[in-house]
């Protein structure tokens, strides 16, 4: 049996690089498609909606010649009727060859893996892990910057509740980058994550001021959510001060990334810059997830 993916936290840089190089192989014949997963079924259990992640997993499985079953929200399913995750997972394990799970609670993928007889890929759980997003982020950065060693990566926005950066920051630490953490005071990165970063001995700097990060090699922008603020005016003020546009960037050309969906944290006038790679980044989700499926199904590659 192949290997699922719950979290990258216990992965070495070498293991991550192996997945990324498999993804590069997948990217080559992504458009023509293959049939190495012919006859295999992926069950996509999405207990909360996520258009991008689900579509990109589906695309990945279809490109590999396999089939997909599943649901995209818990409404109207047995889960909506009160079934436990443990039971859902044990049942679906009887049907499919691989589980992909997205869940609003932290640790859900770990629990699923314990109850499933199949490999499990974590497609995001609560504000915890989102390892497939992290891998496609790393894939995109390495694609553009070649070597990440010594590069300055600025993570901007909601670093407290956003699962994307929770997953990404510790993984980046393995690649010898310097981190700039840019967020409003109330959305600073959690202590848990900082402890982890310290453990890796990563150089990091925290700031509330986006202008201090503009010379970084990568600006990784995340959305600041309205719900995190007591009132709308406060939100508008804070969110506005982290908005990226052409004027703010001036002549600088950092790689600009975003896990999407964006609201207005990146102005539309930035989209035309060659270094604005967020749509390409989303596209990289396909070869990366193809690689993870191949690995999970033990198909070699």
């Amino acid at each position: 049996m192949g290997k699922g993916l719950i979290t990258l936290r216990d992965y070495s840089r070498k293991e991550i690089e192996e997945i990324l190089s498999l993804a590069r192989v997948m990217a080559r014949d992504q458009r023509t498609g293959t049939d190495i997963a012919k006859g295999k079924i992926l069950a996509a259990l999405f207990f909360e909606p996520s258009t991008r992640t689900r579509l990109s997993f589906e695309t990945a499985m279809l490109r590999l010649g396999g089939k997909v079953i599943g649901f995209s929200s818990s409404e109207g399913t047995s889960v909506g009727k009160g079934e436990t995750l443990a039971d859902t997972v044990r049942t679906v394990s009887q049907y499919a060859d691989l589980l992909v799970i997205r869940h609003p609670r932290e640790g859900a993928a770990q629990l699923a893996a314990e109850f499933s007889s199949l490999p499990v890929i974590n497609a995001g759980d609560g504000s915890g892990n989102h390892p497939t997003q992290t891998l496609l982020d790393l894939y995109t950065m390495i694609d553009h910057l070649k070597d990440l060693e010594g590069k300055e990566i600025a993570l901007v926005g909601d670093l407290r509740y956003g699962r994307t950066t929770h997953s990404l920051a510790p993984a980046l630490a393995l690649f010898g980058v310097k981190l700039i953490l840019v967020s409003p005071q109330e959305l600073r990165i959690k202590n848990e994550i900082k402890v982890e970063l310290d453990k890796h001995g990563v150089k990091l700097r925290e700031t509330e001021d986006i202008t201090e990060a503009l010379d970084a090699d990568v600006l990784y922008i995340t959305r600041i959510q309205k719900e995190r603020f007591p009132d709308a005016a406060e939100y508008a003020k804070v969110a506005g001060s982290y908005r990226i546009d052409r004027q703010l960037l001036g002549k600088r050309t950092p790689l600009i990334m975003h896990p999407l969906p964006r609201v207005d944290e990146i102005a539309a006038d930035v989209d035309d810059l060659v270094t604005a790679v967020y749509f390409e980044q989303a596209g990289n989700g396909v070869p990366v997830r193809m690689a993870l499926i191949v690995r999970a199904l033990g198909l070699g590659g």
Partner: protein
Amino acid sequence: MEQMKINRIRQGTVIDHIGAGKALAVFHLLGLKNDQTTSVTMAIRVPSRRMRIKDILKIENRYLDPTETAMIALIAPQATINIITNYTLEKKERVKLPTHLEGLLRCENPNCITTALREPVQGKFTVIGDSPLRIQCDYCLTIIATEEVERLFLRKI
């Protein structure tokens, strides 16, 4: 001699160097409240050279298993376990924190999958630091510090 203030036991276990005020928690933790067969002597806030003041628990005809010793370490990390046979000290050891805790505590993160209604799992933690004590949920990775561990623990017993 501080030891003379309370009765010696013929055989059983003396848990010494329990932090002041924690003996009652250890008593409950070992389920001694419902154990009618053992007699227990408890000393609270007695002077100690090593700790200034401490608690002591003497339990007649009762020995601890490794899980119990591990649990005591969570509440009384300085405690020593003395095995007594025929009024003499046969074996003495410091409690040791376990590396892993299973089923003893529940995660305090309300959004952790282990706290979801009816999921058939128990809390599982990895001990990531001993002084001060810090444990981390194996599922949601929430880190719980000393006082929290104690609070969660005592709520249970």
